[in-house]
């Protein structure tokens, strides 16, 4: 089952330009997984925009509830993934959160990641499905 990441979570916003594409993903892929690492990135994107801890908590709770209602399974973050993320960073140019998301997605069943971020391609461990 394909994996969704931060881009997909942001696209759940009603006014996001990829909102319809995100909803279509729910319809086209009855079984999906989500990188828990994407929630970490969303949390820190919000924190970097001075959102309050309550606003961050609310946002993550709503996103989590939406995915749970849609039957999307979560791939938890593990210690070994943190190690793997830093291993990726030594060889490839990407942000820490991207590397952690990739390490997270590498543990999915079929290693297909729904994302428009082509920095994942250089590692070559997942097949990327564009979010369009």
């Amino acid at each position, binding site marked *: 089952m394909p994996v969704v990441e931060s881009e997909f979570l942001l696209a759940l916003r009603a006014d996001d330009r990829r909102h319809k594409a995100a909803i279509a993903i729910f319809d086209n892929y009855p079984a999906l997984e989500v990188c828990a690492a994407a929630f*970490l990135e*969303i949390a820190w*994107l919000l924190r*970097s925009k001075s959102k309050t801890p309550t606003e961050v908590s609310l*946002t993550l709770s709503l*996103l989590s*509830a*939406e995915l749970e209602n849609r039957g999307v399974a979560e791939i938890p973050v593990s210690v070994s993934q943190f190690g793997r993320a830093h291993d990726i960073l030594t060889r490839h140019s990407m942000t*820490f959160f991207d590397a952690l998301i990739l390490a997270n997605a590498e543990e999915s069943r079929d290693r297909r990641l729904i994302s428009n971020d082509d920095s994942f391609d250089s590692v070559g461990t997942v097949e990327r499905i564009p979010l369009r």
Partner: protein
Amino acid sequence: MSAVTRIRPRYVVTLPRALRKRKNVKVGDNVVWLPVSDREFLAVILPSDRYQVLADLMRGIELSHEARLAAENAYFSSAAKKARH
């Protein structure tokens, strides 16, 4: 204003009438339960259109390379601050 409601089978709870009137709560609205302690939750009532609520909560958030780096810097500077203490 305070009220006590009983948890019914399947953990169903009715919002007290006084609260419903006072806060203009509507059927279909979302209640987000945020844990505060073992026996306390903060219940936040949000409009029924959850995608619009997400748009409001995540307004201005983008996934540009610069925005991702800013988030990463905020994360690591917070961790570094804790490590210094």
